[in-house]
């Protein structure tokens, strides 16, 4: 029961912090929304009279006190009303909802690939730092950190798209509608189109995960409990994968979780290179056209993703590390 109480308090505190972060971000978004550019100028034609403009300004509530405007903005946001895109004159929420499946599928596949390749590569280089394959992995990771994402994309397009002609160089291929969600995962052309963008997007995260797992592994292998596990005669497999790997998980979960969030933001670059019709491409176009409602909505959306992911990461800690599950009084006693 104590455990549950501690857990509940922890979760509540996290949720409270998440709400604070969301309020700060929405305030930023609101400030952008309200003070950057002139919404009236965007909405009416050149020949609208000053009086008409003033009337419109009044009707939109732009003359109300700032606090009132912010409250109204928050109220709208909570109801999913993010305003109208200046550029396309369509509802922003509809616009983003259309684009979201493309970005999420891309980010998810990229994250999976980064994890499934990055963790084993990191474990291997941590366990056998002097083997030649480790050196190859290390070189790959250095390239992954140093090669700009967009350049990796361009090289892939050049080789597999232009020279070899194996894979499509832009777009999402054929998509299938599953409810409101349009997926590219169910068609051959959709999957083929996904390969290069996902590889490009995941490359940097793969590198980060690999480097992190490697350094954590090296750290953990030096600890007393690993030495003691060896002294007990446990097999290498039990020591490495039973004892060492699990102890590297906590930092790996943190970083990977945060990386999943940044994948959605980094997708802006990949989506531009491959003309992938996702939220990132929409956001970039919004910046170029100073489409403030789309920009501020994207900001809120990405922040929401981050906050949710952070929350999930915190809960995963609980699952992995028993030391966090104890009462805070006991924590004080054992240090």
């Amino acid at each position, binding site marked *: 029961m104590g455990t549950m109480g501690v857990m509940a308090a922890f979760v509540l505190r996290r949720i409270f912090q998440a709400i604070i972060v969301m309020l700060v971000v929405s305030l930023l978004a609101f400030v952008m929304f309200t003070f950057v550019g002139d919404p009236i100028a965007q909405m009416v034609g050149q020949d609208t009279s000053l009086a008409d403009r003033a009337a419109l300004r009044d009707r939109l509530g732009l003359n109300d006190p700032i606090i009132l405007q912010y409250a109204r903005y928050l109220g709208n946001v909570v109801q999913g009303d993010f305003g109208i895109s200046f550029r396309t004159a369509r509802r922003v929420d509809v616009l983003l909802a259309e684009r979201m499946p493309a970005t999420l599928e891309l980010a998810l596949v990229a994250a999976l690939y980064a994890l499934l390749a990055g963790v084993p590569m990191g474990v291997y280089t941590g366990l056998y730092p002097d083997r030649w394959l480790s050196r190859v992995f290390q070189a790959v990771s250095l390239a992954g950190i140093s090669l700009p994402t967009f350049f990796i994309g361009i090289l892939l397009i050049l080789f597999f798209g232009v020279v070899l002609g194996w894979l499509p160089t832009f777009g999402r291929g054929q998509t299938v509608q599953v409810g409101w969600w349009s997926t590219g995962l169910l068609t051959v052309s959709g999957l083929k189109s996904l390969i290069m963008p996902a590889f490009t997007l995941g490359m940097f995260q793969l590198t980060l995960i690999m480097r992190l797992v490697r350094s954590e592994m090296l750290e953990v292998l030096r*600890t*007393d*409990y690993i*030495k*003691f*596990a*060896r*002294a*007990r*005669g*446990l*097999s*290498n497999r*039990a020591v490495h994968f*039973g*004892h060492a790997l*699990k*102890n590297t998980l906590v930092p790996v979960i943190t970083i990977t979780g945060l990386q999943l969030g940044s994948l959605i933001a980094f997708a802006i670059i990949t989506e531009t290179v491959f003309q992938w019709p996702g939220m990132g491409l929409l956001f970039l176009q919004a910046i170029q056209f100073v489409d403030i409602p789309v920009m501020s909505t994207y900001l809120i959306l990405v922040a929401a993703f981050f906050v949710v992911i952070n929350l999930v990461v915190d809960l995963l800690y609980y699952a*992995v*590390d*028993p*030391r966090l599950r*104890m009462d805070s009084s*006991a924590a004080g006693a*054992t240090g």
Partner: protein
Amino acid sequence: MAANQPLLQVNNLRIEFPNRRGTLVAVDDISLHIDPGEVLGVVGESGAGKSLTGAAIIGLLEPPGRIAGGEILLDGRRIDNLPYEQMRRIRGKEIGAIFQDPLTSLNPLYKISRQLVETIQTHTDMSATQARNHALDLLDSVGIPAASERLDAYPHEFSGGMRQRVVIALALAVNPRLIIADEPTTALDVSIQAQIIGLLRRLCRDHGTAVMLVTHDMGVIAETADRVAVMYAGRIAEVGPVEAVVKDARHPYTHGLMGSIPAVGHHVERLTQIDGAMPRLTEIPPGCAFNPRCPKVFDKCLAERPDLRPAGRTDVSCWLY
């Protein structure tokens, strides 16, 4: 004459640490043996090479440290050059180990039960249930109260002394014939030290387990050990029965060391103290390593290194004898 064969025999062991400025010799040509069921105390200041000797015996010398010469025999069989996998089967089963810090010796993420069971199952054919029952007996035997309730606890739920008991249970899990105990009580409260040492001594006596007790605490040695080896700067200065070494030490270093223990019942004006400090491994002088600090130093000590030779009831490496 198998009965007279020592359990463990170390011959001319040399441990080196190569680094970019040259090679450090951390353990220089030492020989010792441990008989079945015997407790050998190994004392010396930190850096004297006692822990490294222990690590070399269980085959867990950390790189870049390496055995550069000599041999280690268990039951007359060489174990210092065994392939990793064969040595692994000896660790835990034939030779157990206990380390200094009980707080960090246990994996924080796993229950005690899991750590005990995996050790038992690694070395025996027991089923999971049998192993669990055995684990319970072990916890009981090391004096964990309400062992059946504590079996599924995590390490952080135990105090330091209790954790060291768990560590002892793990080391004794499949009844090894030799335990390397490296400063097993140094990290514990003084009040708990005596309990842990008492427990270790009792369990080993009951099972006929030999112990190599590495410590810098002469008090612990005097109470526990059958024989003592005194190490200084990677060499053995003196070795012999505990009571002879304590009361009738020959080597000037041992002499100084014994003079520094306050003895109960004897009234001493002041404790003696050895001047100076043990030299760094890079600065060991030629001849006898103790010569810069030795009150009885003479010409030969500066030129030639003394070998271990019998003198009185102990073996001493000193030119005085």
